[in-house]
Protein backbone atom coordinates (compact mmCIF):
# COMPACT_ATOMS: atom_id res chain seq x y z
CA UNK A 1 0.00 0.00 0.00
CA UNK A 2 1.40 3.37 -0.96
CA UNK A 3 -0.01 6.02 1.30
CA UNK A 4 1.95 8.97 0.03
CA UNK A 5 3.73 9.30 -3.24
CA UNK A 6 6.21 11.98 -4.13
CA UNK A 7 7.47 12.92 -7.53
CA UNK A 8 11.19 12.55 -7.14
CA UNK A 9 13.78 13.67 -9.64
CA UNK A 10 17.25 12.31 -9.04
CA UNK A 11 18.55 13.58 -12.39
CA UNK A 12 19.91 16.95 -11.29
CA UNK A 13 22.18 15.83 -8.49
CA UNK A 14 25.56 17.54 -8.64
CA UNK A 15 28.45 15.31 -7.70
CA UNK A 16 32.16 14.83 -8.05
CA UNK A 17 33.94 11.53 -8.41
CA UNK A 18 37.08 11.62 -6.35
CA UNK A 19 39.89 9.44 -7.60
CA UNK A 20 41.25 8.96 -4.09
CA UNK A 21 41.59 6.08 -1.71
CA UNK A 22 39.67 6.47 1.51
CA UNK A 23 40.93 4.21 4.29
CA UNK A 24 37.80 3.56 6.34
CA UNK A 25 37.71 2.92 10.09
CA UNK A 26 36.46 -0.62 9.46
CA UNK A 27 39.67 -1.47 7.60
CA UNK A 28 38.23 -1.41 4.08
CA UNK A 29 39.80 0.90 1.50
CA UNK A 30 37.33 2.68 -0.70
CA UNK A 31 39.03 3.27 -4.06
CA UNK A 32 37.30 6.24 -5.62
CA UNK A 33 34.02 7.61 -4.32
CA UNK A 34 31.34 10.09 -5.21
CA UNK A 35 30.39 13.12 -3.16
CA UNK A 36 27.11 14.82 -4.04
CA UNK A 37 27.03 18.43 -2.91
CA UNK A 38 25.43 21.82 -3.24
CA UNK A 39 26.83 25.29 -2.75
CA UNK A 40 25.03 28.54 -1.98
CA UNK A 41 26.38 32.08 -2.28
CA UNK A 42 29.74 33.02 -3.80
CA UNK A 43 33.25 32.25 -2.64
CA UNK A 44 35.08 35.54 -2.11
CA UNK A 45 38.52 36.38 -3.47
CA UNK A 46 40.62 35.42 -0.45
CA UNK A 47 38.36 32.43 0.28
CA UNK A 48 37.58 33.61 3.77
CA UNK A 49 33.81 33.17 3.63
CA UNK A 50 33.39 29.41 3.17
CA UNK A 51 31.14 27.57 5.59
CA UNK A 52 30.80 23.79 5.55
CA UNK A 53 27.40 22.63 6.78
CA UNK A 54 26.90 19.01 7.84
CA UNK A 55 23.51 17.38 7.60
CA UNK A 56 21.80 15.12 10.13
CA UNK A 57 20.54 11.54 9.81
CA UNK A 58 17.66 12.20 7.43
CA UNK A 59 19.14 15.27 5.76
CA UNK A 60 20.97 15.74 2.50
CA UNK A 61 23.06 18.25 0.58
CA UNK A 62 20.06 20.48 -0.13
CA UNK A 63 20.51 22.68 2.91
CA UNK A 64 18.47 25.59 1.55
CA UNK A 65 16.62 26.92 -1.51
CA UNK A 66 14.74 24.15 -3.34
CA UNK A 67 15.64 20.51 -2.97
CA UNK A 68 15.77 19.55 -6.67
CA UNK A 69 14.93 15.92 -5.87
CA UNK A 70 11.81 16.44 -3.76
CA UNK A 71 10.80 19.90 -4.97
CA UNK A 72 10.50 20.99 -1.33
CA UNK A 73 12.46 23.60 0.60
CA UNK A 74 15.96 22.63 1.75
CA UNK A 75 16.10 21.23 5.28
CA UNK A 76 17.78 24.30 6.83
CA UNK A 77 15.98 27.00 4.85
CA UNK A 78 15.06 28.76 8.07
CA UNK A 79 18.69 29.29 9.00
CA UNK A 80 20.54 29.58 5.69
CA UNK A 81 19.79 31.91 2.78
CA UNK A 82 19.82 35.50 1.65
CA UNK A 83 19.44 37.72 4.71
CA UNK A 84 19.10 34.69 7.01
CA UNK A 85 21.23 33.87 10.09
CA UNK A 86 23.83 32.28 7.81
CA UNK A 87 23.54 34.90 5.08
CA UNK A 88 24.34 33.59 1.62
CA UNK A 89 24.72 37.18 0.38
CA UNK A 90 27.84 37.18 2.49
CA UNK A 91 28.94 33.57 2.89
CA UNK A 92 29.68 30.65 0.60
CA UNK A 93 27.86 27.66 2.06
CA UNK A 94 28.82 24.13 1.11
CA UNK A 95 26.78 21.06 2.04
CA UNK A 96 27.56 17.50 0.98
CA UNK A 97 25.59 14.29 1.21
CA UNK A 98 27.38 12.05 3.71
CA UNK A 99 29.25 8.93 2.73
CA UNK A 100 26.73 6.12 3.16
CA UNK A 101 23.88 8.48 2.30
CA UNK A 102 21.33 8.10 -0.46
CA UNK A 103 21.30 11.42 -2.31
CA UNK A 104 24.14 10.76 -4.70
CA UNK A 105 27.18 10.20 -2.51
CA UNK A 106 28.65 6.71 -2.45
CA UNK A 107 26.44 4.54 -0.26
CA UNK A 108 24.54 1.25 -0.10
CA UNK A 109 22.07 2.38 -2.78
CA UNK A 110 24.76 3.02 -5.38
CA UNK A 111 26.19 0.49 -7.80
CA UNK A 112 29.13 -1.55 -6.57
CA UNK A 113 31.59 -1.42 -9.51
CA UNK A 114 32.87 -4.89 -8.68
CA UNK A 115 29.46 -6.55 -9.11
CA UNK A 116 27.46 -4.12 -11.19
CA UNK A 117 24.66 -4.32 -8.60
CA UNK A 118 23.70 -1.99 -5.76
CA UNK A 119 26.02 -2.42 -2.77
CA UNK A 120 23.24 -3.20 -0.30
CA UNK A 121 24.79 -4.77 2.78
CA UNK A 122 28.07 -5.27 0.93
CA UNK A 123 28.74 -1.61 1.53
CA UNK A 124 31.36 -1.23 4.28
CA UNK A 125 30.19 0.12 7.64
CA UNK A 126 31.22 3.78 7.70
CA UNK A 127 31.79 6.09 10.65
CA UNK A 128 31.40 9.80 11.37
CA UNK A 129 35.17 10.05 10.92
CA UNK A 130 34.90 8.47 7.45
CA UNK A 131 32.12 10.90 6.50
CA UNK A 132 34.20 13.90 7.56
CA UNK A 133 37.35 12.61 5.86
CA UNK A 134 35.42 12.22 2.62
CA UNK A 135 34.10 15.78 2.80
CA UNK A 136 37.57 17.23 3.35
CA UNK A 137 38.40 15.95 -0.13
CA UNK A 138 35.51 18.08 -1.36
CA UNK A 139 37.08 21.14 0.32
CA UNK A 140 40.36 20.30 -1.45
CA UNK A 141 38.52 20.01 -4.74
CA UNK A 142 36.90 23.42 -4.18
CA UNK A 143 40.30 24.91 -3.31
CA UNK A 144 39.34 25.84 0.25
CA UNK A 145 42.23 25.52 2.69
CA UNK A 146 40.41 26.82 5.74
CA UNK A 147 36.72 27.33 6.28
CA UNK A 148 35.27 30.20 8.26
CA UNK A 149 33.12 27.71 10.11
CA UNK A 150 31.89 24.14 10.19
CA UNK A 151 28.30 23.91 11.37
CA UNK A 152 25.86 21.10 12.03
CA UNK A 153 23.04 19.92 14.23
CA UNK A 154 22.50 16.43 15.64
CA UNK A 155 24.66 14.07 13.54
CA UNK A 156 25.82 17.22 11.76
CA UNK A 157 27.08 18.46 15.14
CA UNK A 158 28.99 15.23 15.62
CA UNK A 159 30.63 15.79 12.25
CA UNK A 160 31.48 19.37 13.25
CA UNK A 161 33.18 18.06 16.41
CA UNK A 162 34.93 15.29 14.54
CA UNK A 163 36.15 17.75 11.92
CA UNK A 164 37.82 19.85 14.64
CA UNK A 165 39.60 16.82 16.08
CA UNK A 166 40.82 15.57 12.70
CA UNK A 167 41.54 18.82 10.87
CA UNK A 168 42.17 21.54 13.46
CA UNK A 169 43.99 23.70 10.92
CA UNK A 170 41.17 23.68 8.42
CA UNK A 171 38.52 25.70 10.16
CA UNK A 172 38.50 28.98 12.04
CA UNK A 173 35.39 28.18 14.03
CA UNK A 174 32.91 25.43 14.73
CA UNK A 175 29.25 25.32 15.77
CA UNK A 176 28.17 21.90 17.05
CA UNK A 177 24.43 22.08 17.76
CA UNK A 178 22.16 19.68 19.70
CA UNK A 179 24.69 16.88 19.75
CA UNK A 180 26.96 14.84 22.00
CA UNK A 181 30.55 13.66 21.98
CA UNK A 182 29.35 10.06 22.13
CA UNK A 183 26.11 8.20 21.60
CA UNK A 184 24.33 7.28 24.82
CA UNK A 185 22.70 3.90 25.51
CA UNK A 186 19.33 5.57 24.90
CA UNK A 187 20.51 6.95 21.53
CA UNK A 188 21.76 3.51 20.50
CA UNK A 189 18.52 1.89 21.69
CA UNK A 190 16.38 4.19 19.52
CA UNK A 191 18.58 3.49 16.51
CA UNK A 192 18.42 -0.24 17.11
CA UNK A 193 14.63 -0.02 17.25
CA UNK A 194 14.74 1.68 13.85
CA UNK A 195 17.04 -0.92 12.35
CA UNK A 196 15.02 -3.81 13.75
CA UNK A 197 11.86 -2.30 12.24
CA UNK A 198 13.53 -2.17 8.82
CA UNK A 199 14.94 -5.68 9.05
CA UNK A 200 11.60 -7.09 10.23
CA UNK A 201 9.96 -5.95 7.00
CA UNK A 202 9.78 -8.89 4.57
CA UNK A 203 10.35 -6.49 1.70
CA UNK A 204 13.76 -5.65 3.08
CA UNK A 205 14.81 -9.02 1.69
CA UNK A 206 18.04 -9.39 3.63
CA UNK A 207 19.11 -5.97 2.39
CA UNK A 208 18.76 -6.98 -1.28
CA UNK A 209 15.47 -5.21 -1.95
CA UNK A 210 16.92 -2.99 -4.67
CA UNK A 211 18.05 -6.01 -6.67
CA UNK A 212 14.79 -7.87 -6.09
CA UNK A 213 12.68 -4.84 -6.89
CA UNK A 214 11.10 -4.44 -3.46
CA UNK A 215 10.96 -1.54 -1.00
CA UNK A 216 10.69 -2.04 2.79
CA UNK A 217 8.23 0.84 3.18
CA UNK A 218 6.59 -0.31 6.39
CA UNK A 219 9.87 -0.98 8.17
CA UNK A 220 11.43 2.31 7.16
CA UNK A 221 8.24 4.23 7.95
CA UNK A 222 8.11 2.77 11.47
CA UNK A 223 11.80 3.54 11.92
CA UNK A 224 11.14 7.13 10.96
CA UNK A 225 8.09 7.34 13.25
CA UNK A 226 10.10 6.18 16.25
CA UNK A 227 12.80 8.67 15.38
CA UNK A 228 10.28 11.44 15.00
CA UNK A 229 8.88 10.95 18.50
CA UNK A 230 12.38 11.30 19.89
CA UNK A 231 12.92 14.56 18.00
CA UNK A 232 9.98 16.27 19.72
CA UNK A 233 9.40 17.17 23.33
CA UNK A 234 6.51 15.91 25.43
CA UNK A 235 5.25 19.47 25.82
CA UNK A 236 5.68 20.18 22.12
CA UNK A 237 3.61 17.14 21.15
CA UNK A 238 0.99 17.97 23.76
CA UNK A 239 0.70 21.57 22.58
CA UNK A 240 0.49 20.59 18.93
CA UNK A 241 -1.89 17.64 19.17
CA UNK A 242 -3.08 17.01 22.69
CA UNK A 243 -5.85 14.42 22.40
CA UNK A 244 -7.37 16.03 19.30
CA UNK A 245 -9.18 13.60 17.04
CA UNK A 246 -8.42 13.21 13.34
CA UNK A 247 -11.34 14.45 11.25
CA UNK A 248 -13.91 12.79 13.48
CA UNK A 249 -16.05 13.82 16.39
CA UNK A 250 -15.70 10.72 18.54
CA UNK A 251 -13.59 7.61 19.09
CA UNK A 252 -14.28 4.89 16.52
CA UNK A 253 -13.36 1.88 18.67
CA UNK A 254 -10.97 0.65 16.00
CA UNK A 255 -7.27 0.79 15.25
CA UNK A 256 -7.44 3.35 12.50
CA UNK A 257 -5.93 6.73 13.22
CA UNK A 258 -8.39 8.21 15.72
CA UNK A 259 -5.98 10.81 17.05
CA UNK A 260 -4.30 13.57 15.12
CA UNK A 261 -0.92 12.59 16.48
CA UNK A 262 -1.31 9.13 14.95
CA UNK A 263 -2.09 10.52 11.57
CA UNK A 264 0.81 12.95 11.85
CA UNK A 265 3.25 10.16 12.65
CA UNK A 266 1.98 8.07 9.75
CA UNK A 267 2.48 10.98 7.41
CA UNK A 268 6.00 11.58 8.72
CA UNK A 269 6.82 7.90 8.34
CA UNK A 270 5.38 7.19 4.92
CA UNK A 271 6.38 10.46 3.28
CA UNK A 272 9.94 9.57 4.19
CA UNK A 273 10.19 6.22 2.45
CA UNK A 274 10.18 7.56 -1.09
CA UNK A 275 13.11 9.86 -0.61
CA UNK A 276 15.19 7.73 1.71
CA UNK A 277 16.91 4.39 1.30
CA UNK A 278 16.32 1.87 4.10
CA UNK A 279 19.84 0.45 4.03
CA UNK A 280 21.26 3.95 4.11
CA UNK A 281 19.20 4.57 7.27
CA UNK A 282 20.81 1.48 8.80
CA UNK A 283 24.34 2.54 7.86
CA UNK A 284 23.96 6.13 9.04
CA UNK A 285 22.39 5.19 12.38
CA UNK A 286 25.27 2.74 12.87
CA UNK A 287 27.80 5.49 12.20
CA UNK A 288 26.13 7.60 14.88
CA UNK A 289 26.14 4.70 17.36
CA UNK A 290 29.85 4.16 16.83
CA UNK A 291 30.63 7.83 17.46
CA UNK A 292 32.59 8.11 20.69
CA UNK A 293 35.17 10.85 21.08
CA UNK A 294 35.76 9.79 24.69
CA UNK A 295 36.87 6.30 23.77
CA UNK A 296 38.90 7.59 20.83
CA UNK A 297 40.85 9.71 23.33
CA UNK A 298 41.22 7.22 26.18
CA UNK A 299 38.37 8.76 28.10
CA UNK A 300 39.77 12.28 28.01
CA UNK A 301 37.56 14.40 25.79
CA UNK A 302 39.77 17.47 26.23
CA UNK A 303 42.68 15.79 24.51
CA UNK A 304 40.55 15.38 21.39
CA UNK A 305 40.64 19.14 20.91
CA UNK A 306 44.11 19.86 22.22
CA UNK A 307 46.36 22.28 20.31
CA UNK A 308 43.53 23.74 18.28
CA UNK A 309 42.85 27.43 18.04
CA UNK A 310 39.31 26.94 16.82
CA UNK A 311 36.56 29.17 18.22
CA UNK A 312 33.62 27.08 19.34
CA UNK A 313 29.98 27.92 19.82
CA UNK A 314 28.06 25.05 21.41
CA UNK A 315 24.27 25.22 21.32
CA UNK A 316 21.74 23.00 23.08
CA UNK A 317 17.95 23.14 23.47
CA UNK A 318 16.21 22.93 26.82
CA UNK A 319 13.65 20.27 25.81
CA UNK A 320 16.00 18.10 23.74
CA UNK A 321 15.99 14.76 25.54
CA UNK A 322 17.79 12.92 22.74
CA UNK A 323 20.93 15.05 23.05
CA UNK A 324 20.28 16.89 26.30
CA UNK A 325 22.04 20.03 27.50
CA UNK A 326 24.10 17.91 29.92
CA UNK A 327 25.84 16.32 26.90
CA UNK A 328 26.67 19.70 25.40
CA UNK A 329 27.96 20.87 28.77
CA UNK A 330 30.39 17.96 28.86
CA UNK A 331 31.85 19.26 25.61
CA UNK A 332 31.97 22.81 27.00
CA UNK A 333 33.75 21.62 30.15
CA UNK A 334 36.26 19.61 28.11
CA UNK A 335 37.00 22.65 25.93
CA UNK A 336 37.21 24.94 28.95
CA UNK A 337 39.73 22.61 30.55
CA UNK A 338 42.18 23.24 27.71
CA UNK A 339 41.46 26.96 27.56
CA UNK A 340 39.72 26.79 24.19
CA UNK A 341 37.67 29.77 23.08
CA UNK A 342 34.23 28.40 23.68
CA UNK A 343 30.80 29.97 23.88
CA UNK A 344 27.74 28.08 24.99
CA UNK A 345 24.04 28.83 24.83
CA UNK A 346 21.09 26.71 25.91
CA UNK A 347 18.04 27.91 24.00
CA UNK A 348 14.81 27.66 25.99
CA UNK A 349 12.16 26.15 23.73
CA UNK A 350 9.37 23.58 23.52
CA UNK A 351 10.54 22.20 20.20
CA UNK A 352 12.79 19.42 21.49
CA UNK A 353 15.68 18.07 19.45
CA UNK A 354 14.16 19.40 16.23
CA UNK A 355 14.50 22.98 17.49
CA UNK A 356 17.47 23.68 15.25
CA UNK A 357 15.37 22.91 12.16
CA UNK A 358 12.41 25.14 12.95
CA UNK A 359 11.90 28.87 13.30
CA UNK A 360 13.68 29.58 16.60
CA UNK A 361 14.65 33.30 16.69
CA UNK A 362 16.83 33.09 19.83
CA UNK A 363 18.85 30.33 18.19
CA UNK A 364 19.18 32.27 14.94
CA UNK A 365 20.38 35.35 16.83
CA UNK A 366 23.13 33.30 18.44
CA UNK A 367 24.07 31.69 15.12
CA UNK A 368 24.16 35.00 13.26
CA UNK A 369 26.06 36.80 16.03
CA UNK A 370 28.72 34.14 16.28
CA UNK A 371 29.22 33.64 12.53
CA UNK A 372 29.34 37.38 11.76
CA UNK A 373 31.82 38.13 14.55
CA UNK A 374 33.98 35.13 13.55
CA UNK A 375 34.03 36.46 10.00
CA UNK A 376 35.25 39.87 11.18
CA UNK A 377 38.21 38.17 12.90
CA UNK A 378 38.89 35.59 10.21
CA UNK A 379 38.89 37.90 7.18
CA UNK A 380 41.64 39.95 8.79
CA UNK A 381 43.63 36.89 9.77
CA UNK A 382 43.62 34.97 6.50
Amino acid sequence: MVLFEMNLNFNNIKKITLDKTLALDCGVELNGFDIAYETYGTLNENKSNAILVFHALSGDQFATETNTVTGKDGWWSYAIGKGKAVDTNKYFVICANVLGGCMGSTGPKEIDPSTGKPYGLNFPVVTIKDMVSAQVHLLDYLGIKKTLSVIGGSMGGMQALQFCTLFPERTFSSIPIACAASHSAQNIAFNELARQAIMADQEWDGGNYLTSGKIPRKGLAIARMAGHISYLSEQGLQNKFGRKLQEKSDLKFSFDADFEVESYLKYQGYSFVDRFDANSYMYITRAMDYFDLYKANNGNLSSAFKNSKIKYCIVSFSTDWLYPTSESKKIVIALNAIGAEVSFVEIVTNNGHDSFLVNEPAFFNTLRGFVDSAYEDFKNEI
Partner: protein
Amino acid sequence: MKFEDDILSGLIDINSRVLDVGCGDGSLLLHLKKNKRVDGRGLEIDQKLVQESVAKGLAVIEGDAEKDLVDYPSNSFDFAILNQSLQQFYDPRKVVNELLRIAKSAIITIPNFGYWKVRLSLLLKGTMPVTENLPNFWYNTPNLHMCTIKDFHNLCELDNINIIKSISVSSGKIGNIQKSNLEIKNLTSEIGIFLVRKS
Protein backbone atom coordinates in the same frame (compact mmCIF):
# COMPACT_ATOMS: atom_id res chain seq x y z
CA MET B 1 32.26 52.70 29.40
CA LYS B 2 31.18 52.83 32.99
CA PHE B 3 33.36 54.63 35.53
CA GLU B 4 33.88 51.45 37.59
CA ASP B 5 34.86 49.50 34.48
CA ASP B 6 37.74 51.92 33.98
CA ILE B 7 38.95 51.23 37.50
CA LEU B 8 38.67 47.46 36.97
CA SER B 9 40.50 47.74 33.67
CA GLY B 10 43.32 49.56 35.45
CA LEU B 11 43.83 46.54 37.72
CA ILE B 12 44.23 44.08 34.84
CA ASP B 13 47.62 43.29 33.30
CA ILE B 14 48.18 43.43 29.55
CA ASN B 15 47.98 40.04 27.75
CA SER B 16 46.55 38.33 30.82
CA ARG B 17 43.90 35.63 30.87
CA VAL B 18 40.64 36.95 32.28
CA LEU B 19 37.39 35.29 33.36
CA ASP B 20 34.51 37.71 33.81
CA VAL B 21 31.92 36.02 36.01
CA GLY B 22 28.54 37.58 35.32
CA CYS B 23 29.90 39.40 32.29
CA GLY B 24 26.53 40.88 31.28
CA ASP B 25 26.53 42.11 27.69
CA GLY B 26 30.31 41.67 27.53
CA SER B 27 31.17 45.37 27.34
CA LEU B 28 33.92 45.13 29.97
CA LEU B 29 35.42 42.03 28.34
CA LEU B 30 35.36 43.75 24.96
CA HIS B 31 37.08 46.80 26.44
CA LEU B 32 39.74 44.56 28.02
CA LYS B 33 40.21 42.63 24.78
CA LYS B 34 40.77 45.83 22.81
CA ASN B 35 42.77 47.82 25.33
CA LYS B 36 44.59 45.21 27.37
CA ARG B 37 44.76 42.49 24.69
CA VAL B 38 43.49 40.00 27.25
CA ASP B 39 42.48 36.44 26.41
CA GLY B 40 39.01 36.78 27.87
CA ARG B 41 36.18 34.43 28.75
CA GLY B 42 32.79 35.15 30.22
CA LEU B 43 30.15 33.37 32.25
CA GLU B 44 26.64 34.80 32.26
CA ILE B 45 23.28 33.46 33.43
CA ASP B 46 21.03 35.60 31.20
CA GLN B 47 20.61 34.05 27.78
CA LYS B 48 19.94 37.34 25.97
CA LEU B 49 23.09 38.87 27.40
CA VAL B 50 25.07 35.78 26.39
CA GLN B 51 23.82 36.23 22.84
CA GLU B 52 24.85 39.89 22.88
CA SER B 53 28.30 38.92 24.12
CA VAL B 54 28.71 36.18 21.52
CA ALA B 55 27.73 38.65 18.79
CA LYS B 56 30.63 40.83 19.96
CA GLY B 57 32.99 37.96 19.20
CA LEU B 58 33.47 37.08 22.85
CA ALA B 59 33.73 33.56 24.24
CA VAL B 60 30.90 33.49 26.75
CA ILE B 61 29.23 30.52 28.37
CA GLU B 62 25.64 30.54 29.55
CA GLY B 63 25.67 29.24 33.07
CA ASP B 64 25.16 29.79 36.78
CA ALA B 65 28.39 30.72 38.58
CA GLU B 66 27.08 29.18 41.78
CA LYS B 67 26.98 25.76 40.07
CA ASP B 68 29.35 26.01 37.14
CA LEU B 69 32.56 27.53 38.54
CA VAL B 70 33.41 24.07 39.85
CA ASP B 71 33.95 22.93 36.24
CA TYR B 72 36.77 25.39 35.61
CA PRO B 73 40.27 24.00 36.08
CA SER B 74 42.46 25.44 38.84
CA ASN B 75 44.85 28.29 38.04
CA SER B 76 43.55 28.62 34.50
CA PHE B 77 43.20 32.42 34.61
CA ASP B 78 45.27 35.35 35.78
CA PHE B 79 42.22 37.35 36.82
CA ALA B 80 38.64 36.45 37.72
CA ILE B 81 36.24 39.39 37.84
CA LEU B 82 33.07 39.44 39.91
CA ASN B 83 31.39 42.75 39.32
CA GLN B 84 28.57 43.78 41.70
CA SER B 85 27.11 40.30 42.08
CA LEU B 86 28.76 38.75 45.16
CA GLN B 87 25.72 39.63 47.24
CA GLN B 88 23.43 37.68 44.91
CA PHE B 89 24.89 34.24 45.63
CA TYR B 90 23.58 31.66 48.07
CA ASP B 91 27.11 30.97 49.21
CA PRO B 92 29.26 34.06 48.52
CA ARG B 93 32.13 32.78 50.65
CA LYS B 94 32.43 29.66 48.50
CA VAL B 95 32.25 31.76 45.32
CA VAL B 96 35.13 33.98 46.46
CA ASN B 97 37.24 30.93 47.20
CA GLU B 98 36.29 29.32 43.89
CA LEU B 99 37.41 32.46 42.05
CA LEU B 100 40.78 32.23 43.79
CA ARG B 101 41.09 28.57 42.90
CA ILE B 102 40.47 29.29 39.23
CA ALA B 103 42.47 32.51 38.97
CA LYS B 104 45.64 33.87 40.55
CA SER B 105 43.86 37.10 41.41
CA ALA B 106 40.23 38.05 41.81
CA ILE B 107 38.69 41.46 41.35
CA ILE B 108 35.49 41.77 43.32
CA THR B 109 33.21 44.76 43.57
CA ILE B 110 30.35 45.23 46.03
CA PRO B 111 27.69 47.82 46.71
CA ASN B 112 28.63 48.91 50.23
CA PHE B 113 25.81 48.36 52.73
CA GLY B 114 27.85 50.37 55.23
CA TYR B 115 27.48 53.59 53.19
CA TRP B 116 26.09 56.37 55.38
CA LYS B 117 23.00 56.97 53.26
CA VAL B 118 22.11 53.29 53.54
CA ARG B 119 22.65 53.32 57.29
CA LEU B 120 20.72 56.54 57.73
CA SER B 121 17.84 55.33 55.59
CA LEU B 122 17.39 52.26 57.78
CA LEU B 123 17.89 54.27 60.96
CA LEU B 124 15.47 57.06 60.14
CA LYS B 125 12.89 55.43 57.88
CA GLY B 126 12.99 52.02 59.50
CA THR B 127 12.61 50.37 56.07
CA MET B 128 15.13 48.49 53.94
CA PRO B 129 17.25 51.07 52.10
CA VAL B 130 16.56 51.94 48.46
CA THR B 131 19.40 53.93 46.86
CA GLU B 132 21.03 54.44 43.47
CA ASN B 133 23.21 51.36 43.98
CA LEU B 134 20.47 49.38 45.73
CA PRO B 135 17.48 50.29 43.58
CA ASN B 136 15.11 47.46 44.55
CA PHE B 137 12.70 46.95 47.44
CA TRP B 138 13.28 44.18 49.94
CA TYR B 139 10.72 41.94 48.25
CA ASN B 140 12.14 42.11 44.74
CA THR B 141 15.85 42.56 45.28
CA PRO B 142 18.14 39.89 43.80
CA ASN B 143 20.50 40.55 46.71
CA LEU B 144 20.62 37.73 49.23
CA HIS B 145 23.73 38.51 51.21
CA MET B 146 24.37 42.24 51.51
CA CYS B 147 27.70 43.13 53.05
CA THR B 148 29.81 46.14 53.90
CA ILE B 149 33.40 46.92 52.95
CA LYS B 150 34.37 46.02 56.51
CA ASP B 151 32.51 42.70 56.24
CA PHE B 152 34.45 41.87 53.11
CA HIS B 153 37.75 42.74 54.78
CA ASN B 154 36.78 40.48 57.68
CA LEU B 155 35.93 37.59 55.33
CA CYS B 156 39.33 37.91 53.66
CA GLU B 157 41.02 37.73 57.05
CA LEU B 158 38.96 34.69 57.98
CA ASP B 159 39.86 32.83 54.78
CA ASN B 160 43.53 33.92 54.56
CA ILE B 161 42.94 36.03 51.49
CA ASN B 162 45.37 38.87 50.80
CA ILE B 163 43.82 42.17 49.91
CA ILE B 164 46.26 43.64 47.40
CA LYS B 165 44.16 46.69 46.66
CA SER B 166 41.03 47.99 48.32
CA ILE B 167 39.41 50.89 46.50
CA SER B 168 36.53 53.09 47.57
CA VAL B 169 34.20 54.77 45.13
CA SER B 170 31.87 57.58 46.08
CA SER B 171 30.27 60.27 43.89
CA GLY B 172 32.69 59.44 41.09
CA LYS B 173 35.74 59.78 43.32
CA ILE B 174 38.09 56.95 44.09
CA GLY B 175 40.27 56.43 47.13
CA ASN B 176 42.45 53.83 48.80
CA ILE B 177 41.11 51.88 51.74
CA GLN B 178 43.62 50.94 54.41
CA LYS B 179 43.36 49.50 57.89
CA SER B 180 43.76 53.02 59.30
CA ASN B 181 40.82 54.51 57.38
CA LEU B 182 38.61 51.41 57.11
CA GLU B 183 35.93 52.70 59.50
CA ILE B 184 35.54 56.02 57.74
CA LYS B 185 35.76 54.54 54.23
CA ASN B 186 33.14 51.99 55.23
CA LEU B 187 30.89 54.92 56.00
CA THR B 188 31.64 57.14 53.00
CA SER B 189 31.98 54.65 50.09
CA GLU B 190 29.11 53.66 47.82
CA ILE B 191 31.08 50.89 46.20
CA GLY B 192 34.09 48.82 47.24
CA ILE B 193 36.50 47.34 44.69
CA PHE B 194 38.99 44.71 45.84
CA LEU B 195 41.95 43.04 44.20
CA VAL B 196 42.59 39.89 46.21
CA ARG B 197 44.91 36.88 46.11
CA LYS B 198 45.18 33.66 48.02
CA SER B 199 47.87 33.81 50.72
